[in-house]
């Protein structure tokens, strides 16, 4: 079989060129980069133990990825012990079907931001199957209305200025929304509040999972995840297996390093969820669904991750915390944003595209637009050797070894 990548490269180059001329992207990223650099250096000064903690986390991740099968089993047992239901999805399709099996049709679903959700095209799938799904992260909500894909993993709508937000909001809400950020935030707050309390299901990802306790740690700032996972009667966590770590203590370390390099001293909220809501206040009889969800489900998704874990040259890519630091330091990302990406972005995104979200052909143009300059490695709290992996992927592409 012959795979002709020539057209793909040309189309991709055009897309990158267009992005690099987009003044919205240029202004937004320039602003974001300088704020990222300033806040990170400031918070690292304030919490000087962080780089050392990051090194410790590298060890935790290395150990976890080497013992993935074992951790997965423990995690599933813990979820069940906590009266939740645990599922394992081998691939993309299985993950979607399990979720749909729990949710059914004709339901209202509120969703927190998750890269796994993007990887699976979860919202689109649930909608196609007759559900009403709302992204509750403000940036994702804007993109949902604009029918666009994220341009950054943490600030998905980074490229949309307030005027364009006002425009799409005015149209959607059927009333004049002024290009005023506070006003824009307020209309969404009012709209989604009603959704949280009428939704049938809340879906979230998780930043880390402690397998000993079954604790899902979810970091956020807006408070949307609290509401989306607390108000509806059902909470589904969908999480990639790369998030598993042995202990609760480990999970706290991973969480702190994650938010620190995502430029937070401390995030607005850290949610720790391990099972359905319960009470024993009346006659010590445990009853589920007190104030929070009565049902709690966790879907652990592999979708190419165990293949990555098995390869010495690539397993380190699973250590990625999704802090976003490397993207701000990437000279290509700085001028093209999420256009240098498929679902996952930047150099690390090219690796993930090859194994998890898209496959080698989708990854090839991304792999060749990486400069291999190595600055991401300097920034990365996990010191992920992206340039070496890019080199390895190039070889596989050239000789069709995939």
């Amino acid at each position: 079989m012959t795979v002709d990548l020539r057209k793909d490269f040309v189309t991709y180059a055009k897309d990158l060129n267009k992005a690099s001329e987009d003044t919205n992207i240029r202004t937004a990223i320039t602003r974001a980069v300088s704020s990222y650099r300033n806040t990170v250096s400031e918070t690292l000064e304030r919490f000087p133990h962080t780089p050392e903690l990051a090194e410790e986390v590298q060890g935790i991740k290395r150990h976890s990825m080497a013992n993935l099968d074992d951790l997965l089993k423990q995690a599933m047992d813990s979820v069940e012990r906590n009266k939740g239901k645990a599922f394992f999805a081998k691939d993309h399709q299985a993950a979607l079907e399990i979720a749909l099996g729990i949710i059914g049709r004709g339901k209202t679903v509120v969703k927190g931001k998750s890269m796994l959700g993007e990887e699976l095209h979860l919202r689109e799938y649930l909608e196609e199957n007759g559900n009403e799904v709302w992204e509750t992260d403000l940036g994702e909500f804007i993109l949902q209305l604009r029918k666009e894909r994220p341009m950054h993993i943490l600030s998905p709508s980074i490229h949309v200025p307030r005027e364009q937000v006002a425009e799409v909001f005015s149209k959607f809400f059927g009333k004049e929304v002024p290009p005023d950020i506070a006003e824009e935030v307020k209309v969404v707050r009012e709209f989604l509040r009603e959704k949280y309390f009428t939704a049938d299901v809340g879906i979230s990802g998780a930043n880390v999972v402690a397998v000993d306790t079954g604790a899902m740690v979810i970091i956020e700032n807006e408070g949307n995840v609290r509401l989306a996972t607390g108000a509806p009667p059902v909470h589904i966590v969908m999480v990639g297996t790369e998030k598993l770590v042995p202990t609760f203590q480990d999970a706290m370390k991973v969480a702190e390093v994650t938010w620190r390099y995502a430029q937070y001293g401390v995030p607005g909220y850290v949610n720790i969820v391990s099972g359905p809501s319960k009470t024993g206040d009346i006659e010590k009889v445990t009853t589920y669904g007190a104030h929070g969800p009565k049902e709690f489900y966790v879907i652990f998704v592999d979708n190419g991750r165990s293949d990555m874990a098995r390869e010495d040259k690539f397993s380190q890519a699973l250590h990625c915390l999704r802090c976003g630091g490397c993207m701000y330091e990437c000279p290509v990302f700085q001028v093209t944003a999420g256009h240098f990406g498929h679902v996952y972005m930047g150099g690390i995104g090219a690796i993930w595209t090859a194994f998890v979200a898209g496959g080698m052909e989708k990854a090839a143009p991304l792999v060749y637009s990486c400069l291999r300059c190595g600055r991401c490695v300097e920034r990365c709290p996990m010191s992920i050797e992206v340039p070496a992996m890019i080199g390895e992927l190039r070889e596989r592409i050239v000789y069709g070894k995939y």
Partner: protein
Amino acid sequence: METKMPMVLDIISENIIKHGNPLALKGSEVASWAKELDLPVKGELLFYTGGEYQLLPFIDSLVKTITHLDQGSKVFSMMMGARNILNKTGLNAEKMYASVLAKDKDRYNSVCLKAAKVLHGLGYEFCYSGNEELYSGALLYELGYLEDMKNYVQKVVEVIRNSGAKTIVCLSPHAAEVFKFIYPKMVKGFDLEIVTFVDLVWQRRDQLAKIEASGAVVIHDSCRLARELGIHQELRDILENVGADVKESPRNREWTSCCGGPIKILFPELSHVIGSRRVNELKESGAEHILTSCPYCLSALEGGRTKGDSAIIEDLIEFLYRGSKA
């Protein structure tokens, strides 16, 4: 499975493998700078250019030709293989050679001569393989043609061994990188000492004469030099010894920003945007005189400078040569 890669990659990799140079330049062209020096072909220390500075003036015309062809078009896909495209588009070394400005050609060709003179001035004696010298194959490594590289490097090593040298001094950090980290994995018993031009100058920096510069200079650290080879303080030490006023850009040393050069042949426009952003970032230091120590950085930064920009972009070799002339 077989993959059809963008044509420009076929051309470059085939040129390296068949002609020992990414643009199929002739050995005599590549070595023409050395005529006046009459360097020995054997010695302890081998002066290695890899033809990298010499091919710089041609890269842009290659890129221009490539980007003018619509790689998605029918005609294009009919022209299979690098040989064909070389013939049908007239994209050959002779033609490109003719289309290049004489002043660019002279400038980049003389970088090697200047480097040799600077090292001689510091009392180094070395040999040079002349017409026989082959490109290191760094681009084969960069672009993923590693299986081809495994065969190719054997030829390179043969030429190097013929010189009898124990140490290679590389002008380009890319060559130094592959000699240091890749060759030992591909060639049995490859144990030559690899140094860069910067290393040798740094060792004898006390002997450097002062250089009269019109204003402050700023260093663009090459990614390879700063991050892979860990050389950045050396550049500052050298410049301090020649009495230059060195300003620093906000992103420097191991945090340096890439010049955009590595993606120039596949994504020329984007590479250009990245290059000009870097030029501006360097100018934020307050200095307009940019010095680098890598052929690709030199070319990418030159390309990124906007028309009429007063910035001066030079290789460290060119800058140091001013001192050795005096």
